[in-house]
């Protein structure tokens, strides 16, 4: 389960450092006020791979995910220590432009949250905000391309001016994914993106994840073991704020090394 050399082994037995390591988290502690939510988490995430985060409710998956695009900054009580590098760059360095950072890291939430705007404007929002595209034709092209990539274009190309909120739940979720990829992020964070979706919509999102991973690095929180097994190459198991085990997804679901992991993935936790 440990990759690389001895030096990569962290106190809590995690791995980091691979040829294609993109996100490198070392000894990350997170507190909400004086309540600790993450304990010394060290986790490496490889480029152009899907990594799933699994673990019981409240174990810190969303907290960890939010560390990666500094979304925790907006929570007043939240404090973070440790080190998170993306492409070798410390994202908590005071000189970092957080808006620019977030443009490189798209996020998709559990509940689809389209803006109260048209389908078109939902997708165009990011590129406009970041001043990436000003030309009208170019913007049209971008919106179309993003919706195509999100597997939504054919279904809604005649409804671009309708409110995003008028779409079905599964369509809204794919709209949010289109919105996330419209700014050409390197990384897409997904927090239980399918938990409100039916099996068909879920399958479409999973198909999309499969396609996206050729260009993007994806970190997905999921409560479905089967989904983690289907979509991800690596899986990390969290428990009570600790990273317990990380490894190739296949091994986690075939023969995990840690008993707590085994108990959780087999439904014995409790």
């Amino acid at each position, binding site marked *: 389960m440990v990759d690389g050399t001895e030096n990569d082994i962290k106190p809590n037995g995690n791995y980091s450092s691979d040829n294609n390591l993109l996100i490198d988290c070392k000894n990350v502690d997170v507190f909400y006020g004086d309540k600790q939510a993450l304990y010394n988490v060290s986790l490496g995430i490889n480029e152009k791979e899907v990594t799933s985060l699994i673990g019981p409710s409240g174990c810190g998956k969303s907290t960890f995910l939010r560390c990666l695009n500094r979304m925790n900054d907006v929570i007043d009580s939240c404090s973070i220590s440790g080190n998170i590098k993306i492409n070798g760059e410390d994202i908590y360095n005071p000189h970092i432009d957080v808006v620019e950072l977030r443009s490189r890291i798209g996020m998709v939430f559990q509940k689809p949250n389209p803006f109260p705007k048209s389908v078109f404007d939902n997708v165009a929002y990011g590129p406009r905000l970041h001043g990436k595209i000003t030309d009208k034709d170019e913007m049209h092209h971008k919106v179309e391309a993003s919706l195509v990539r999100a597997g939504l274009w054919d279904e809604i190309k005649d409804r671009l001016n309708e409110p995003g909120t008028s779409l079905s739940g599964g369509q809204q979720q794919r709209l949010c994914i289109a919105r996330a990829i419209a700014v050409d992020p390197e990384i897409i964070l997904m927090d239980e993106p399918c938990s409100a979706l039916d099996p068909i919509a879920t399958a479409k999102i999973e198909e999309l994840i499969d396609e996206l991973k050729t260009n993007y690095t994806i970190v997905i929180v999921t409560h479905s*073991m*089967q989904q983690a*097994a289907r979509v991800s190459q690596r899986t990390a198991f969290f428990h009570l704020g600790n990273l317990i085990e990380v490894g190739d997804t296949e091994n*986690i*679901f*075939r*023969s*995990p090394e840690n008993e707590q*992991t*085994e*108990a959780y*993935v*087999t*439904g*014995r*936790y*409790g």
Partner: protein
Amino acid sequence: MTEHIVSSYDDDLKEISDGVINMGDEVLGALNNIETLLKNNDHELAKKIIKNDLIINDLGQSVENKVFNILASRQPMAIDLRIVFSAVKISLYLERCGDMCKGISNRVLKGDLNEAQSPETISLLVNMCSMVHSNLGIVMEDYSKKECDNSVKVWKSDSEIDSLYSEILMDILNSIKTNPDATDALVPLLFIARYLERVGDQATNVAEETYFVVTGEDLEGLEKTEVENETTF
């Protein structure tokens, strides 16, 4: 391992393992009968073994049905997945053992032992049968206890059965050479030896599966690395 949060999941898994264990008991019973059969050329017993093979097949079918249901309804993971997956494989191995026992019985019914003039060869076959019985008994015992130490021993000692098998072949061939008139009586014994050897192979297959269930690793892989380490010394 502790129990599942959903206790009926434990019941379902136990039913599957119990089905495999029952199959094992039936096959061990059949091997016991084969031993007697070889000693006594008992045709009634041969018929009984053939009839019992249907029971073994039914048990196998029932394991398969339960596995279907548990895969569809629970999508087992990790240790559970290993248990379910290996139940399918072990039940197939045991079914094959049943077929071998049936094969031997059929040969006996055809009169293969009627003219046997070689009590020494018969007694070698009886020894082989009892070795195979013992090996299968050990691995099934391990399986039922979710242990694997003794299975590893059986797995490593399979060559003993193989060498007994070679010994029997040589014995039969030599007898044929010295007494060509006995050829018709002796050749059928070759087939019986071959059947028993194949049952022995199934015992090592079961050992591999049990090892996989318990450790999550391949017995093959383990052996290879050990051997490699030895050769570097």
